[in-house]
Every structure is written in C-alpha cells, then in structure tokens.
C-alpha cells in the first residue's frame, strides 16, 4: 500500500473544483500516535500518511461539520468532502448514505484496502513511554517499528487489533478511487460472543457491573462513533430526562445500554468506542452481540450497500416472532 499513490490521489482530489477539503491521516505529535488531518486545496499534501498506526475512523468528521455562525455560506459552499476510508470506514459511509445522513454526492471517497491496524495499548505496552514520533511499516507478516534510531521487528499477530482479526471487509465497499489491491472478504466470526453468552447469568452480571463501575461518563464513546450524529441525543435531553447525570453503576448501565441499543442493526464494527475509552471498557462486546443477533435472527449485515434498507425500520413477514409471547 504505497503512500505515494495515496498522495497522488489526494492531489488529484484536491485539484477538483468541487472538493473543499480532504480528511486524512498525518503523523501524530508523539510516539505511536496518528492524527486526523484536514487539508484544504493548495495546502501541503506531503503530510499525508497511511500506515498500520492509522487506527482511528475519520468518518466521524463528515457529520461534525458545524457551520460556524457568522461564516458566510460561501465559506461552507455546498460541495464535496474528500475522505480517506478503510474497509470498516466504508461500511460506516454506506450506513450514513442509507440513513440519509449524508448525500452520496457530498463525499469523494479515497478507499484504502486495509490489512489491519495496530492496537494502541498493545504497542505502548511493548514499547512504553516512547515520546519521539515512530514509523511503522508492514512486511510479510511482521511490523517493522522504528523510533529513536532503533528498529524492531514484531510478528503482526502480537500487535494487531482484536477487531481486525475478525474483520469481514478489508477492502472498502464504496469508493471513488481505490488504493491497494482488493483483499477477499472474510466470513463473520462471533466465537468470542458465543463464549460469553454461554456463561451463567450471575457471572455475566458480575462482569458487566464491574465494567460499568469504571465508566466515568466522558461520552467519548458516543462522540467518536461515526453513527452517533443526532443533533439532540436522547442521553442529553432534559425533558424528558431519560438519564441522570450522576455517575454510578446503575446510571452507567442505562447509559451504555441506551447508547448500544441505538446502534442495533447499525454498528459496523470499526471499534472506535472501545479504542477511545479512557477506562478501557470492552464496549465492542455489547455491539458485536447485537451484530451477531442481527445476522442470526435477520441474516442482516449493516453497511454493505448504501441502497439497503436499515434493519429495524423495515418489516418482513418472515421476520422471527419468537420473542413475542
């Protein structure tokens, strides 16, 4: 996956008259971090990177473009945003288009087929307290990590993010330009969820109570999710007030269940909620449970096709009725 090809595509994208800026990745400010980059036409393309460290989803920013009061409409003229999208990002974009969150012609998508990204916690555990920005490349099954003049080779399996191990669509499903060769789709795999389901209800309860006690309600899991874009979110509404602001296990449970259920049949498994959580809660476990139910109960996978109908708003006569007594 050559960075130069990405830069050429980005230059072409920004050369178009109808693209106002491009959202991509650039080197982070320290260690193994990567930062979102907002590049306007005629700005420096060289800062763009694509590497296994690019573990954040950029689709979030498509829906966060607040028109600043006082800025003329001309400054926000209705035209395209170019965005670098990996496999899971493209599913999020499909979902947004399907739900009419964003019109297809507002996006110029530079698809990047993705061989999996590094889990930030794992690499920082292996190489703690690295301040100088590091470079990581992938070569035949290993990561070559170089910083402070040294270079280390680590087998990919050791640092790969858990979600990438069960990723179904490494190649973007929707793009204007594709970079990198097409990688075959892979079957879904929910063994970890099945294992957890098998546990007795008291053990599950104890597990989640212990996790929800840690939550500090910083709302990063909601704010980072590409599919949480409602202008007034039910978690913030005061009248009616569904959720109290006090932070205890009971309210945190309500917070996480409300937030997760609003992603039922929508979540595309990018794992951002779990990645950003400062208290390390296993939030994707909840989402993947709903993903598994959607597949088993309705044979449905979210974000595969922008023209698909969303799961919970369409009724088919053959939908299972088992849960209605």
């Amino acid at each position: 996956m050559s960075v130069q090809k990405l830069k050429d595509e980005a230059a072409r994208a920004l050369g178009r008259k109808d693209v106002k800026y491009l959202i991509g990745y650039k080197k982070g400010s320290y260690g193994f971090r990567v930062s979102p980059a907002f590049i306007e036409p005629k700005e420096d393309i060289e800062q763009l990177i694509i590497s296994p460290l690019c573990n954040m989803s950029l689709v979030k920013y498509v829906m966060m473009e607040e028109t600043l009061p006082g800025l003329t409409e001309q400054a926000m003229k209705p035209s395209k945003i170019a965005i670098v999208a990996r496999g899971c990002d493209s599913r999020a974009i499909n979902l947004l288009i399907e739900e009419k969150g964003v019109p297809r012609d507002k996006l110029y998508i530079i698809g990047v087929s993705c061989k999996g990204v590094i889990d930030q916690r794992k690499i920082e555990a292996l190489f703690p307290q690295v301040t100088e920005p590091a470079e990581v490349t992938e070569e035949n099954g290993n990561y070559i990590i170089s910083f402070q003049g040294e270079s280390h080779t680590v087998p990919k399996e050791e640092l790969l993010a858990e979600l990438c191990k069960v990723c179904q669509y490494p190649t973007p499903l929707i793009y204007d330009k594709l970079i990198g060769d097409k990688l075959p789709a892979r079957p879904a795999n929910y063994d970890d969820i099945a294992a957890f389901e098998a546990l007795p209800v008291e053990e599950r309860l104890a597990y989640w109570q212990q996790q929800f006690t840690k939550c500090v309600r910083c709302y990063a899991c909601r704010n980072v999710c590409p599919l949480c874009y409602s202008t007034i979110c039910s978690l913030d509404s005061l009248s009616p007030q569904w959720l109290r602001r006090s932070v205890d296990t009971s309210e945190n449970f309500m917070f996480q269940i409300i937030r997760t259920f609003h992603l039922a049949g929508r979540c595309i498994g990018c794992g951002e909620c779990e990645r950003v959580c400062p208290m390390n809660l296993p939030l994707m476990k909840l989402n993947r449970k709903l993903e598994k139910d959607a597949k088993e109960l309705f044979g449905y996978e979210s974000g595969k096709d922008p023209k698909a109908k969303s799961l919970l708003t369409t009724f088919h006569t053959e939908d299972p009725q088992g849960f209605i007594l």
Partner: protein
Amino acid sequence: MDVLILQKDSIKDFLSSLSTDYLLWAPIEKDGDTLFQPLLDCNNNSPDLAHQAIIIKHSIFPQTEPLYSYDQNDQIQAPDAQDIKQNILFGVRPCDARSFSLLDPVFKGDVPDPYYLARRNKALLIGMACTKPFANCFCTSVGGNPCGQEGLDLLCTDLGDRYLVAVLSEKGKEIINKTSSLFIAAPAEEIKQGAELAQNAERSMKRRIDLAGVTDTLGRIFENPVWKKMALKCIGCGICTYTCPTCYCFDMQDEPMAKKRGRRVRVWDSCMYKEYTLHASGHNPRPTRVERLKNRIYHKFKFNVDTFGTFGCVGCGRCITLCPVNEDIIENLLAVKGAA
C-alpha cells in the same frame, strides 16, 4: 524537616498500620489500567507505583457528590461533614499534589465550598517522586518539578530497595511518629543520591515548551484563525477535562427518587460539551468546538493567571496521552505562540 529511610519490604506494614485509622487511597492496577482507589486490604494488593493513575482528583473532589437530600415532605438534609474519614492519599505524583493546591483557591475564595474543603482538610498526601517521567509529562514547563514537594506531607524517592522519605509538614511528622519503628534516619550519601535522582529526572523530561509571554499573547490573538484549524479534529468529549487534575467545573441537578424523595447532586461537567453553556432559549455563546477548545486554553493559560496568578495546568500530560484524536496541548500552545 528530617529525611528518613523506609525499606521497600516494610511498605506493607507501613500501609496496614495506617489503614486502622485512616482511609487509604493508592494507585492500583486493574486489568491493564492504573486506577486511584481506596486500598482496602493492603496485604494482598499493593500499590502500582510504576504507572500514572488515570484520574486522581475524585479522591478529594468526587465525580458525583450529593449536596442535600429531601424527603416526601420537603425536609432538606445536607450530609454531615463530620462523617468524612481522615484520608491518606499514597503514591501521589508531585504534579497531582500541586494540582490540589491549584484547586484550593477556587473552592476557598469569598464563598468557601464546604463539601470540597471538608475532604481537602482531612486529606494527607504521601508523594512518590517521578525519577523516570512519563511520555508526555511537561511539568517543568509550567512551574512544576518531577520531584517537587509543593502540597505534599511526605515525599518518597525510590532508591532501589528502599525509599528516601522527606517529611514536609506537621501532618507528615504525625504519620512518621505513628509508625516510627519502620524508619531510620537517612545517611548523608543517600540524601545526595536522592538529590542526584531528582536532577537527572528534571534533565530527562522529554517534553518541554517555553511558556514565557503566552498569557499576553493569548490576550491579543482572540480573533486569530489559528483556533479554527486547531479545533477541527476535536470531537468534544470529556476525556481531557475529566482526567485533568486541575479541572473543577461541575453541574448541579435535581434527582427525584422513589416515594417523592429526592436529592440535589453535584457532578463533574466539561466545558467541551455543547450543553455546558447552552441557554434555554437555544442560544449558545460557545456554539462550536472552536470556541470551547479556545475557552479551555484561555482558562488554563490566561484567566487562571489573571485571577489566581498561576497557570491552571500542572503539566501531567494526561490530556495528551488519553485524547482519542491526538489533540496535543503542547502543539496547540506552540501554535498560539506562533500566531502572536
């Protein structure tokens, strides 16, 4: 004040002897993260002194604190300050200790806050010097020091198999008297070794920024476009403010409960949230992430200086480490200086 030696293997007895009449807090490792929590039984879980606790201010400024409760016929009842136990915060980093002395003027002032002060006056801080600063620490750039003593009652410095313990206050002395059998006077060369460790800790700070004149620069660049570029990637979550030891903003809400009872609760709030300044009429003086991020930096590097004379930041680096989108306050401050 005298300097003593405490053998590492007698840390357990030191803590358990204190836990009889003090509530002990310490950084404890829990599935990969270091949380600052009450250390209930010191025998089989020991403090994790190698990492930086994610949040520490909740030990004195709790995230959720009931202000008063009321019963079905509206009798209001506030909690009694007496039943707050004497706390010992063990393993506090010098920057975190300093952060409490930055919170004090806010909660003291002309209308003192009884809730914060009840806990603050009953908290005793035993510090752990940072001989190996973490990745994003920049305490030396904001007037702090990896082995600083400000706000601490005792300061331990790790000498390998034992700690050099500096007694810094009367309260610290009381603790030593209670457990004096565990301590011996520190010989001169170990005190020197401690001082050397402190010096090269200061030298080994990996992140620095010269903040001279940043307060005046901020006074001039309020309308500068640098802020827009800076805030584009911020997602407006609460991580930086909740993990920041010097952030104290809070919300107050009423919470009705069963049988017409209820309570009024104080909870942490974040200036990065939209609802923080949203008027009931829908108007919002800080409508987008640009104004909010700008307000956060102005508060810590200008308003706090104008009001209390010091930066509202101790350089602990948590907001840099934990930000999901790598919003780096040192980079932002460099951009501020560049925009002068």
